[in-house]
């Protein structure tokens, strides 16, 4: 499973430090996943108490980010890692930032849930919301899973699936805008749903970022500005 050979350093403490970084990222990821699931349920069911819980978890996610950031910085200073070790540490530093942002976006969804709780349910948008939420939750899970297994193929799939999500987000927004023009009294409540959709779309982008970091980690390739088929070709060539 460990195709980066994290456990093969001459220094056992270094093995342990890197492993701790890896599991720390996965734990933080699990936390954000749960936070997202709660936020989605809170907005779908206009559950104020659940929304409040999501907002509380955010502090814990922030603390995790700070802790892991310090761990990574210590490794950089004390071990001066190179090659795949260096890429792992850099990857974690970037990925925890993305996870923290995902947490922020989940909190935004929770805040929209609280507003809808006050103003009453929106007349439209729940179908789109549920649809996008399912896809985004899957994407986040797939990104974390790809990290756990250092699996570039799954990572490439995450990047690809995020593009689909962006397309679906656009079409959902178009539909809701059309609806609001027909029924201006619903604007404020439908806007809350739209903000939640927007947050989901951003979460998808962060999951894609994490997938891109994984490709960099495993193959040392920066894939942010090249086409996916090129990425796949390069991965095949490096095998």
């Amino acid at each position, binding site marked *: 499973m460990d195709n980066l*050979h994290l456990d*093969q*350093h*001459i*220094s056992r403490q*270094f093995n342990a430090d890197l492993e701790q970084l890896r599991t720390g990222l996965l734990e933080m990821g699990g936390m954000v996943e749960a936070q997202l699931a709660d936020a989605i349920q809170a907005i779908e069911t206009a559950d104020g108490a659940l929304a409040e819980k999501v907002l509380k978890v955010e502090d814990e996610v922030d603390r995790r980010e700070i802790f892991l950031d310090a761990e990574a910085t210590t490794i950089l200073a004390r071990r*001066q*890692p*190179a*090659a*795949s*070790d*260096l*890429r792992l540490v850099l990857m974690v530093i970037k990925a925890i930032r993305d996870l923290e942002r995902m947490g922020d976006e989940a909190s935004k969804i929770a805040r929209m849930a609280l507003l809808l709780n006050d103003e009453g349910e929106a007349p439209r948008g729940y179908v789109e919301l549920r649809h996008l939420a399912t896809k985004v939750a899957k994407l986040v899970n797939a990104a974390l899973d790809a990290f756990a297994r250092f699996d570039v193929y799954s990572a490439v799939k995450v990047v690809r699936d995020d593009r689909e999500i962006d397309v679906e987000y656009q079409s959902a927004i178009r539909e809701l805008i059309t609806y609001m023009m027909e029924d201006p009294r619903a604007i404020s409540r439908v806007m809350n749903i739209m903000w939640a959709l927007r947050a989901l779309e951003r979460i998808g982008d962060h999951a894609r970022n994490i997938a891109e970091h994984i490709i960099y980690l495993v*193959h*040392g390739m920066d894939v942010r500005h090249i086409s996916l088929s090129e990425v796949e070709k390069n991965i095949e060539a490096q095998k």
Partner: protein
Amino acid sequence: MSMQDTQASETVGSVFVDDAKFSVRSLSVRYGEDLAISNVSIDIAKTDVIAMIGASGCGKSTFLRSLNRMNDTIENCKVRGSIKLDNVDIYADKRDAVPLRARVGMVFQKPNPFPKSIYDNVAYGPKIHGLARKTADMDEIVETSLRRTGLWKEVKDRLTQPGTSLSGGQQQRLCIARTIAVSPEVILMDEPCSALDPIATATIEELIAELNSKYTIAIVTHSMQQAARVSNRTAYFHMGNLIEVNETEKVFTNPEHDLTESYITGRLG
């Protein structure tokens, strides 16, 4: 350890360059029957600071010494293959190696000033190569060389004191001044900082960067960080084989060969 039977492996990376100062082809070096360097080919560019890294005994010093024929002084050391400096084979005939060593200077691990004054340490090379006729010329060579190594201010009032009276870091800079006093084209350094503290090391590294505008530099180092800091290309040796040569940045972020990766990340290969 015998490497006779080991098939020389193909070197990966960017081994050859357009503006080669040194072109090494199929170099093998033996001590008696033991193969220390096995079929190594590589170019060193005029503008290079190239770092040689690898575990103890992998042949870094042997390789470096073959570049200015220092190996000639070792009995039973046999060199095969070709090494060209500016397209001329330095082993072509068994001529006197002294002129070659003026063009390709060497700095060693332990600072080794001659038991002479600071001034005479620097003046020694120019004197035997007949580079200065008049005392004023010699004074100028000494001053310029000491200035270039950043030592002038520290020693200008004590030029007659013995070189050995300096600190370790100053002695090493004195040895570098002595090397550049004969206007070499290439400077070979074999672990030049291993006996120095971090400040003295930083001073030498700064000096390497500065000297690189005039000289081609090849440096052997056991410090991965030093190789990463000072060089633009890095060559990784493993048991007499040249495994990988690449841009330093590539070697330390994404090496091509698994053996390189294992070595620089401190894994058991």
